[in-house]
């Protein structure tokens, strides 16, 4: 197919890359909280969807949904801090499985609350950005996708600079390296954890707003986003930003091709199977050295 229909290939690749940038943004938040607090947040995808609904409601009330990119992270930051104060701070230094199960509970809770509040319909916020045609209209790119990729890159770069330069960023990085030492040297780790989770939720908010413009959102669509970001993080490793970006794009391209070749009904299934394959592949590679994934 790749050579028979070159235009479809180009289309799938471009779509995949633009989509992958978005995934990378969500995965960045995942890597951040995983690295700093050592928790895996299953509710990540549901935070994304919640962020998307914020943008969607702005659209319903006549505000252009692109403003959601600014508003949604601000609201989501406080949602994130709230979740941290209520639940996450009790699981931070416990077994990872406890955090997985607890956030799974949050995920179910969010799913159902969103279902009550916003209804079970698939919705999207129409940005009215139009489309770009390339190669004699053989390749169609909605401008909203380009917009979302650009915004994601801007936010990611902004966050990287913030983490490098600001005081809080330094504190977060210090806590990630060694939380005990950071505590001794006067870092309020409790505050750092709350801020980290808040920043993660804010990133999810940005991504959600972009997804509501570019694709569609639905209360039950969260889990695939969690799995995607988990996958990107384990492929790239914690704290490897170019790796996160690259594997995000790779995942996006893989999905688009799976969509074309296998059909849309198998798309999510293919993503989950890819996760299993990646984990098993890495396990066999490491077991040659008698090691295992840590």
């Amino acid at each position: 197919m790749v050579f028979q229909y070159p235009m479809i290939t180009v289309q799938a690749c471009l779509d995949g890359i633009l989509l992958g940038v978005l995934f990378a943004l969500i995965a960045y938040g995942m890597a951040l909280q995983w690295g700093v607090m050592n928790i895996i947040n299953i509710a990540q995808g549901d935070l994304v969807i919640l962020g998307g609904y914020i943008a969607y409601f702005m659209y319903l009330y006549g505000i252009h949904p692109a403003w959601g990119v600014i508003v949604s992270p601000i609201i989501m930051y406080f949602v994130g801090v709230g979740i941290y104060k209520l639940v996450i701070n009790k699981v931070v230094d416990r077994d990872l499985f406890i955090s997985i199960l607890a956030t799974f509970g949050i995920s179910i809770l969010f799913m159902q609350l969103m279902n009550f509040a916003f209804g079970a319909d698939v919705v999207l916020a129409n940005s009215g950005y139009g489309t770009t045609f390339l190669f004699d209209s053989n390749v169609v790119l909605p401008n909203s996708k380009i917009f979302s990729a650009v915004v994601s890159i801007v936010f990611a770069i902004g966050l990287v600079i913030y983490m490098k330069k600001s005081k809080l960023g330094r504190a977060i990085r210090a806590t990630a390296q060694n939380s005990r030492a950071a505590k001794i040297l006067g870092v309020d780790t409790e505050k750092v954890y709350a801020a980290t989770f808040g920043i993660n939720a804010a990133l999810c908010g940005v991504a959600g707003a972009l997804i509501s413009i570019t694709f569609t959102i639905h209360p039950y669509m969260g889990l695939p986003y969690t799995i995607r970001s988990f996958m990107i993080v384990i492929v790239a490793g914690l704290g490897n930003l170019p790796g996160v970006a690259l594997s995000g794009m790779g995942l996006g391209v893989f999905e688009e091709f799976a969509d074309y070749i296998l059909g849309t009904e198998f798309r999510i299934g293919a993503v989950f199977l890819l996760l299993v394959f990646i984990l098993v592949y890495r396990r066999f590679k490491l077991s040659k050295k008698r090691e295992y994934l840590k």
Partner: protein
Amino acid sequence: MNKNFILYALILTFGIAAPFIFPAFKVQLSILCVLIILAITWNIQGGEMGYNSFGNILFYGLGMYLCASVQVGMFFPLAEWTESGGEKTFVHTPSQFFQGMAAGLVVAAIIPTIVAGLIGYAILGLRGHYFAICTLGLGVAAGEISGGIEIIGAGQGFTTPPFPNVGGLEARGEFFYLLSFVALVLTFIVVRGVYSTRFRLILNAIRDNEDKAEAMGIQTMKYKIIGWMISAFFCGLAGGIMGGLVGYIDSTDVAFDGREMGVFMVLMAILGGKGTLWGPVIGATVFHIFKEGFWTFFLGWQYVALGVLIVVIVIYFPEGIMGWLREKYPERFGEVVDEADRKAQVELK
């Protein structure tokens, strides 16, 4: 031993008498039996072995589809059955129904066991949270993929053969209760037998420190796979029974229902107490009673309640009911308590 024997006899008598004492709750009691089986099977690798799986729903759903497919496929063309959907063009005679069910349950138990054995080597090499996420992925992928397969009904679902017209609804309830109760007793006896051997110690050694267990010369991988296969066997069996009981199979809402059953089994085992024989039984019973009460009186809010329940149990009650009892009455669990030591501890507090 004698005391235990009386206890088991009492429970068995109660189990047999239950559908006659509570005739209105036959279906609920059958579901309870299935839930207990699921909790026990999850506990084998989740509690004893320390491999927290979110993906045992894979075997449950597989068993469900296999049992129904065999039951239909033995006598009628499967594709036409699923295509006709709700409007039945084929009717099972009573003997066909029971023969099909028996054969279906055997297949439903054996194939998942084989599947567990085949994927076990690859999947069980992962540890901790990687194993948890990987199995979560497996379960969801199975649901998504089975939802796209035409011959087992794809998106529109699969209606299992209706109960033959002998004795009506009462007989149906009694039949399924008996079936699930027998399966439960079988599961309990087998698991209890397995736990009384060295096998349980090996599983516990793997849970406590796998590297050390390996260094002691235990072939951990072999035992992990066997543990998972035992789990899969009864999980598939439970799935087959549940399929017949519900009467309708949907890929993501009934069979590979990671959001409900997949979490329930973890939750029940944790609520009762991981790594104990009776914990899952108690946990499943308490959970089912709580759930049914909540489901009936707060219809629509059940998932909200479920989410809150998960968070509360996991954070405040990770040791479960058995763990709590153990802390309160350590003598009953065969632990020697030094009274002076205990008093000293209390004073320190």
